[in-house]
């Protein structure tokens, strides 16, 4: 299982050889992945928060 960032900077983890988009709201499946899922979720949340802040600033 790998963790990486896609071209558009979404947080993606590779699950069983397939890419998996980590939603910022998380999911039980992500939590059940343990370390990898939690870290990826935290990263996705951070990314989403940054995007929200940026959007606010742009307005």
């Amino acid at each position: 299982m790998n963790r990486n960032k896609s071209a558009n900077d979404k947080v993606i983890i590779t699950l069983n050889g397939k890419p998996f988009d980590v939603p910022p709201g998380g999911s039980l499946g992500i939590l059940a992945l343990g370390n990898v899922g939690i870290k990826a979720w935290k990263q996705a949340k951070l990314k989403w928060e940054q995007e929200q802040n940026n959007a606010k600033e742009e307005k």
Partner: protein
Amino acid sequence: MQKKKNKVLLIGWDAADWKIIDQMVDNGLMPAMKSVIERGVRGRLATLDPPLSPMLWTSIATGVRPFKHGVLGFVEHDGKGGVRPVSSYSRKVKAIWNMLTMEGYKSNIIGWWPSNPVESINGCMVSNLFQQEKKGKETMDVNNWEMPEGTIYPERIIEKMMAVRVHPHEITGNLVMPFVPEAVALDKKQDKRLTVIAKFLAHASTIHGACTELMETEEWDFTAVYHDAIDHFSHAFMKYNPPKMEGMDEDAYELFKDVVKGAYVFHDMMLERLLKLIDDDTTVVIVSDHGFHSDHLRPRFVPQVPSGPAVEHAPYGIFVAMGPGIKKGERIYGARVLDVTPTLLTLFDLPVAKDMDGKPLLDIFEEPREVNYIESWENIDKPGGDLVKLLKVDDAMNEAALQQLIDLGYVDDMKVLDNADDTRKEYLKNVIRENNFYLAKSYSSAGHYDEALELLLEIENRESPDFRYLIEIINCAVKTKRFPLAQEYIEYIRQDKLMKDDFLDILEAKVQIGLNNASSAVKLLDKAKKSFPDAPDVLLELGKVLTVMRDLEGAKMCFQRSISIDPDNPHAHHGMGLAALRNEEYELALEYFLNAIEKLYHYPQAHFHLGECLVFLKEYQSAIHSFEVVANLAPNLPKTYRWLQDLHETLGNSKEAAYYNLLVSKYRLGEKTIITGVPSKKLFEVLNYLKDNGLEIGGDIEDVFGSSIEITKPNWLVDYKESIVFVPVMLVGSLTGRFDYSFVYVEDDVNNSADFLMSLGGLKQSTYNEQLIDALEKQVRVVETWFSQQPNLDVLHINGIEDLKNPIIEKYLKLSFK
């Protein structure tokens, strides 16, 4: 090429129960668990009394009972005049991780209860307070979440452990939705139940995060992870679980009926991930410390006493093992929480200590395993074997963890506490007293009733009586045959109205049984049965006493009712088997004894009666096996060795017979010739004739009912110095197994006996007394069955004085009649 190392992954799910798991596996909701069951062995894990998690998980990790390991209850004295959640300081013996450290194995230990503060083991340790997000009364902010001191070893892993923690505030609505699909309908601020779910989920995720991180990034031979979430979810939400409980609010039921199932699904998902982190050389063991009632056995209310919620715990947890050399798709029987550490040691080819209370579960292996034994792990002097050293612990974290225990109902609320010294001292005194109560329970559940009683009498306080202590005092007094003491306490409870009379009747009945007043016991139990028709305690006691009185049909009805209420109750199955055995229905008895043993393997009486049953079915080899199990489980039962001697003699195994004869002689107190028979003129004549011929006969021949005999005294026969003793027929079944007996049974017609008894009472003879004749006929049947069911017993039936001149009788009585 270096041999691959065998690894072991131990997963602890507090309160996980087969009733729920089997249902969910069948419905395809726990695929990971299903795959482990199919590729390994499964069984029930018998818990200990009291079924309190910190005590049980320490027994799981040490292989010894709480009175040896020292973890007693949920809280302990903090050494500063206060209390704190029970910690690793209380543990007095080595845990599996200490043993593995001494042997050079590397361990990851995550969340074990109690493991705070952590120990400097060979490997990594993350304590059970690591996931705590509260500091004192305040909840720490997600971005300012400190790592409490004493929760991580070694320090170098702190950063990576911080990275995998999940704070309850991070749990979003869509994470709670799978548990409560209609969560949106609830006001999160008003309804604390959603907050509780978020907290349990965050804690479980944090522990799982730490476990997976250590498994992936650290070298290890042994990983043990403990999750409390199933227990917590069950205590909070099992009341909503289908089938709907009577009186449950319909809306609440609809909202929360899937929460417990959701918790199990989430654990299965976590399990799936763990299974991906291991290789084929890893053995996986999944255990729970006790089960949780999920059906009609759910209690209607939880007693408002410390550890009250434990009434919801069921007596069997789960055991599953899968890995190299372990059987596939099979069931094992008789596993106990005490057996986990000895089994883990065996998996590592390490010796099991003789001072452990558990035994390795050798039935799990495909090939027979040789087990090495040592006296104890405690006196092995190797680096790493030290118990936890005094480290700095975080007081604020302890305070928060203590509050959590109060919220769960395990510990008394401290709201009444103020800072006054006296109040604090009183609270501390109560905590110590409560822990001593658990210590006493641990003693009594191991059969150490004297130690338990001594402790209970010490902590019992008439100024603030606690009905749990008083009940335990009465039970221990009955077990140690201190009936006046038991009666004194029953009277005290009755006078002070500390319990309902119906409950007291059950206790009083136990005393009456001990005093051999079976009919009084039946009256009391019948009365109690009217108030509690489905109470297992009442049904079992009544069944037992009816068996003694040979009302075997009545006994069977009680046991059958008990089985229909709780089909897993081993005592009900044993009782049913015993009633059938006494009724000479051996096939039926066999079935029930096997059921009892399947449900509770460590049940010497069930194995013993199974052995007797097999003898009567002429299955001698199997009977030998059963008695050998008894000899192993309860080595101090001399009658077991008599049976083994008798069976080996029957089969012509002279060497084995001689060996067991030697063991019998260890317990043998001597030889006795017993003269008995239904009370009759003929019996009197025989006894008087023998006396007139100079024979010294023990016992009072006028006392036809044996009312002067102290039946409650163990080995009462020992008081008679004479080698020939008159024993009233109704007491024959209670003779100790420590003598070699020869019986002289004086035969007479029951009608003659009835006439004789009526003449004693001054009534006119030959008046037909149906009840008396029935009772006498029953007594004859009972004693004849008893004779036929004893090993190595000589019984000579005589018809009167004339028969005494028989040379065999002369030999028995060591007297020559002219």
